[in-house]
């Protein structure tokens, strides 16, 4: 650990040194943050991390080289170093090309990922981290063509990057859709070969009063379905043992994004049609453990401001077409989000609260936070993650309600 820490710090100082040698077209910035969180149930500290987020860029009129390096220690004092992004970007007159590891963010909504098809997520701690940290980079090539306010973007990802799931022994391990605790076999990932590439395209237009986009992709689902490998049925007892294996599978999706200004408010919507998405079901009915269904996922929402407070409301619905009773998920899953934000004291203090509400259970996640900018380069923050309900996407974590505090220094 000490060795890799020293190596990573050496890289950071090297980048910083380069930045200082030629300040005109080289920049080095980022932040250092210390963050701790404790569970309300027993006040145990489940998060104690120190992070250095270092960003280096070298740019000319036509080219940008960008690197984002993350150095972190976690609550077990385990050191991690990761390259969040590393890419080369070429700016043409009417087109751009970016090659390398990069985050590609699509969609019009806040805190929801419906048409955000390209970049996988880090859900190892559910939705607790900042959204900047939830999104992972994908490795590939992105090209953008521009004509006025029209934009066409195509993406090719030869390397598959899955979404990170919570570890089975973590606080954030989700409730499993199986009647007994299964044994998990290592997931099957697509081999590294040309024919396993992922392909995405998006057309977008930004105009007076309305922004519009259409997108589609043929890709590997970032989260695996679980296939039953073996099961043991004991007479008069029933199912007593189960082995399952995660499978990443090919799927396709097509969607839209829309935002419009109507008077003082912004209305927005996005939606996607998913082809042959896998849903887990009763293994007595589906021997494989899942079945494929087409699905629609959409959102409608609005952003507006009242007396200095910014509000965002969203209603999200996922519909499984041709739904069958043996599926784990309901035919309709309804969720809403509410975002409130307000700044005080000449923008030095910011209050915000993001709430997810699940209608089925019902359940909720409330994420309030207050941030105080002590100086322009330093801020402290405190807040909480409050899970309400007994079941559902949020209620299943009702024992994980917690509070946190952090200090952040920008450079």
């Amino acid at each position: 650990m000490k060795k890799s820490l020293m190596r990573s710090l050496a890289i950071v100082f090297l980048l910083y040194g380069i930045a200082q040698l030629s300040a005109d077209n080289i920049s080095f910035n980022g932040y250092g943050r210390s963050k701790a969180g404790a569970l309300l149930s027993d006040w145990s500290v489940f998060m104690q991390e120190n992070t250095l987020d270092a960003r280096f860029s070298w740019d000319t009129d036509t080219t940008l080289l960008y690197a984002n390096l993350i150095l972190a220690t976690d609550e077990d004092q385990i050191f991690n170093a990761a390259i969040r992004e590393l890419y080369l970007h070429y700016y043409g007159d009417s087109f751009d090309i970016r090659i390398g590891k990069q985050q590609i963010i699509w969609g019009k909504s806040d805190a929801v990922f419906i048409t955000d098809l390209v970049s996988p997520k880090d859900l190892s701690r559910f939705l607790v981290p900042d959204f900047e940290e939830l999104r992972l980079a994908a490795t590939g090539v992105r090209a953008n063509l521009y004509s006025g306010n029209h934009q066409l973007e195509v993406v090719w990802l030869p390397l598959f990057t899955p979404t990170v799931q919570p570890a089975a022994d973590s606080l954030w391990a989700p409730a499993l859709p199986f009647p007994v605790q299964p044994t998990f076999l290592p997931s099957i990932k697509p081999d590294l070969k040309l024919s396993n590439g992922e392909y995405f395209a998006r057309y977008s237009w930004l105009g007076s009063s309305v922004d519009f986009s259409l997108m589609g992709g043929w890709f590997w689902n970032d989260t695996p379905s679980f296939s039953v490998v073996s099961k043991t049925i004991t007479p008069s007892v029933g199912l007593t043992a189960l082995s399952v294996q995660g499978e990443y599978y090919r799927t396709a999706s097509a969607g839209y994004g829309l935002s419009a200004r109507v008077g003082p408010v912004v209305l927005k919507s996005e939606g996607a049609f998913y082809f042959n998405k896998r849903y887990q079901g009763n293994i007595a009915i589906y021997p494989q453990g899942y079945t494929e269904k087409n699905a629609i996922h959409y959102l409608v929402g609005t952003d507006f401001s009242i007396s200095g407070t910014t509000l965002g409301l969203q209603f999200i619905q996922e519909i499984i077409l041709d739904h069958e009773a043996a599926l784990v998920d309901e035919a309709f899953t309804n969720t809403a989000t509410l975002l409130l934000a307000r700044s005080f004291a000449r923008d030095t203090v910011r209050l915000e609260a993001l709430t997810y509400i699940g209608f089925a259970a019902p359940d909720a996640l409330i994420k309030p936070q207050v941030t105080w900018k002590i100086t322009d380069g330093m801020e402290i923050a405190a807040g909480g993650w409050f899970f309400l309900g007994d079941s559902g996407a949020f209620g299943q974590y009702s024992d994980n309600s917690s509070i946190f505090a952090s200090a952040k220094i920008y450079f």
Partner: protein
Amino acid sequence: MKNKRIIGFSLCALAAIALLNPLSAQTKTKAPNASSSASASEIMMKVYARSQPADMSALLTMTLIDSKGHERVRSIKQISASFGTLEKKIMQFQGPADVRGTSFMSWSYAEAGKGDDQWIYLPALKRVKRISSDGRGDSFMGSDFSYDDLAERHPNEDTHKIIGSEAIAGEECWIIESSPRDKNYSYSRVVSWVSKNKQLGFRRDFYDKGGALLKTLTILKMEDIGGFLMITQTEMRNVQKNHRTSMVFTSVEVNKGMQESVFTERSMMKAL
């Protein structure tokens, strides 16, 4: 319309001076034409219609100074241009570090009642988002300027009357009181000092809805740039809270032939 922020305001609505200076050297006389609302409107219309460059780029340094004299500095690169009745602008933060790379884009329309289109790009979230154009009375980036203060306001939105005249640093000015037709406007009235010889105003007093003086805007520096008299330094003082904000424009360039295609999502996401 309301959101023709900095450039609209500073290049057009106010304007003036080499004459700034000692407001203490003012000599005030009673309004000779105090009942002439028609001529007051004409004066304000001339200020509004004053010639201005088709496009501009500049570095803006905004310094927020609290009652104890503590300063916070924001550095912004901005570009703006007019295309007929449409004005487009991008403001991109250069500092402080926590907001570096954040961009705002606004498209403002001359048509009465047509609100601005506005977008924000947050580097951390890596996407451009359309935002509400409401909250015009809100503070601009924590400063003493509100979005309303920075907007170019059409004279027809107010009624005007001359309430006096005054010499400031040797420049004879009309003192014109403007009262909003829309009672939801941020202020109950605004009093402007407008040169009698130039279509320029160079001081403004803003009164709150209770009728008390809230803020005073003064112009500290003007320069002739590309044949246009440009305000390059202003200060807004909140007299009720005793804090102030200065704005200084540097590296100002005008009429460089900026194309409309510059004002896009792409420009927001890359360094200007």
